[in-house]
């Protein structure tokens, strides 16, 4: 097992995201300061509307904060725009979405290969990495299947493989088990836990799922856009 590097990969300072104005102002995120260290397996938890998704969007560079800063791998992503931000997401962040979100006209292998194509990774290297990662997520031999020909659990494994194949600094996963049955969910979590242990890959979840909460080493409780509890677990 690799020892995770204990250094912050995500730093947010006084992060705010407000929607609307005047009487309709909604403080989706209000003055959140947070550090997530490399190799963490953390979960953002809280009721609906607590700001989990907003925080994950801002950390992933998918949205811009109203105020405050977001630093990822030592760079201010809230100050990036356009192509710079696209390239940064491509090279440093892996996303896993609730509803798999594979490109339905590309095979499982092509979906995984997609980000490497954007990165300009040579063909032979792409094929090798795709083959390796399919093995690791338990999908060896299914690479040529189109997403509709895979089960929900298998599709989510492809999504995990796509997120990690470019070896990003962090993987952001939004309710990754929400659409899976219990057995598939546990199996998927074991894959991710293993990647975290073996490669020191950093995972941040947004979840309501008890199975994730049980496995997370850190639970960040959010309520009304604020962190109300930050719980380190053994």
């Amino acid at each position, binding site marked *: 097992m690799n020892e995770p590097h204990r250094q912050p990969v995500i730093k947010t300072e006084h992060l705010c995201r407000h929607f609307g104005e005047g009487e309709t102002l909604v403080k989706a995120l209000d003055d959140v300061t947070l550090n997530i260290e490399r190799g963490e397996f953390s979960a953002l938890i809280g009721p609906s509307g607590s700001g989990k998704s907003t925080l994950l969007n801002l950390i992933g560079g*998918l949205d811009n904060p109203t105020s405050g800063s977001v630093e990822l791998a030592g760079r201010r992503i809230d100050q990036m725009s356009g192509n710079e931000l696209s390239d940064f997401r491509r*090279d440093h962040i892996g996303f896993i*979405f609730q509803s798999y979100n594979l490109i339905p*006209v590309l095979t499982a292998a092509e979906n995984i290969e997609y980000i490497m194509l*954007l990165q300009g990774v040579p063909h032979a290297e792409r094929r090798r990495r795709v083959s390796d990662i399919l093995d690791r997520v338990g999908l060896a031999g299914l690479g040529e299947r189109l997403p509709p020909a895979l089960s929900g659990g298998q599709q989510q494994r492809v999504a995990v493989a796509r997120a990690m194949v470019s070896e990003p600094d962090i993987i952001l996963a939004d309710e990754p088990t929400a659409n899976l049955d219990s057995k598939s969910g546990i199996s998927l979590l074991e894959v991710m836990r293993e990647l975290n242990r073996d490669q020191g890959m950093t995972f941040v979840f947004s979840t309501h799922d008890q199975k994730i909460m049980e496995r997370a080493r850190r639970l960040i409780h959010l309520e009304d856009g604020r962190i109300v509890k930050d719980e380190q677990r053994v």
Partner: protein
Amino acid sequence: MLIIRLAYRNLFRNARRTLLTILLISLSLTAMMLTDAFIRGSIVLMTETVTKTFGGEAQIHRAGFLETFDSDLVLTGAARLVEDVRQIDTIAAAAPRIVSGGMVSSPYNVTSAQIVGIEADAERQVSRVSTLIVEGSYLSGSEGEILIGRELANQLEVTLGDRIVITVAEVHSGELAQALYRLSGVFEFGVAEMDEAMVFINLTDARRLLQLHDGAHQVVIQFSHPDLATDLDHPLYALGDDTMEVVNWLDSNPEIASMLSMTSYSSAIIGMILFLLASLGVINSMFMSIFERIYELGVMKAVGTRPFGVMSLVAWEAVLIAAASATAGVGLGLVLGYGFSIYGIPIGEFEVAGISMDRIYTVLDSSQFVDFPIYVIILTFLASLYPAHFASRIVPALAIKKTL
């Protein structure tokens, strides 16, 4: 390559919509091709009707004759002039004519008409008068023959062999002169003005009647190739001077010339309308496609696809649709255009600027098969830029807000 592969596969995600879009664009292209082929056909018909039926591709007159039709404006030494013209390379035929207004009377009726004196054999080379005889026979060159139109024959209540008297004013003296003719043939141009008010007699008879010894009012010319008529550098046009004008068929038929020019504009306008409609169809289709998979496009952007990559994807989809449409449209246009070029398009009894038309044969041209499809692809690409730009500006957080 990935973007093109992705764009290609995306076309089959909603095959019905893709097919309908292809149908819309290809039918627009086919319609444009057929419109152009139809217009070309009508231009050819009009041109040939004007130049081959009677007017010739060029004419020589005394200056001012075309404006006034004054029979005093005579080309003297017409026989030599005709010979000189015939010596020019690329001149296929030339024939002299005498043209004068006069009265035509039968034992039962009298009316005014245009009297045209023609040289029977030479006239065969420059007009279709000899082929339009529906009763009796064409002029043989014998003295006293006359050809009149079907309508005029009815008006004068005459039949073949009946006597017809022509009264004219002599060219130089202005004295009235009369001559008796026997109806030798009845023609039918299908143009009311000609069938009601035109008679043909032999050139020698006309000269005698009008007291014109070797003169003529016009020399009608056919070139070896129709395009030479509009080439003002052709040696024929060098014959013109202050006293003698050489005009091509466009100059002598200004109403037809302006109509042809208008026809070109109308072709462009129809094309623009068709392509505008097709473009709106493309924009609509692309937007539907984008909104249908906005979530997916959001994910593509989230995982690092640059805005230009998303824009390229949508634009490539449009270009592939345009290429398929162009292929289908050209194929359909070729089949229909070829069919109509053989069997013609019936348009009923239709007369424009004195030209009678009942069926138009489409004329195919390489531009319809090369230029038009290229326009379609370019315009479809341009039409796709708006939805493509929209797609490139999708905010991932909004597109996938159901989860993240």
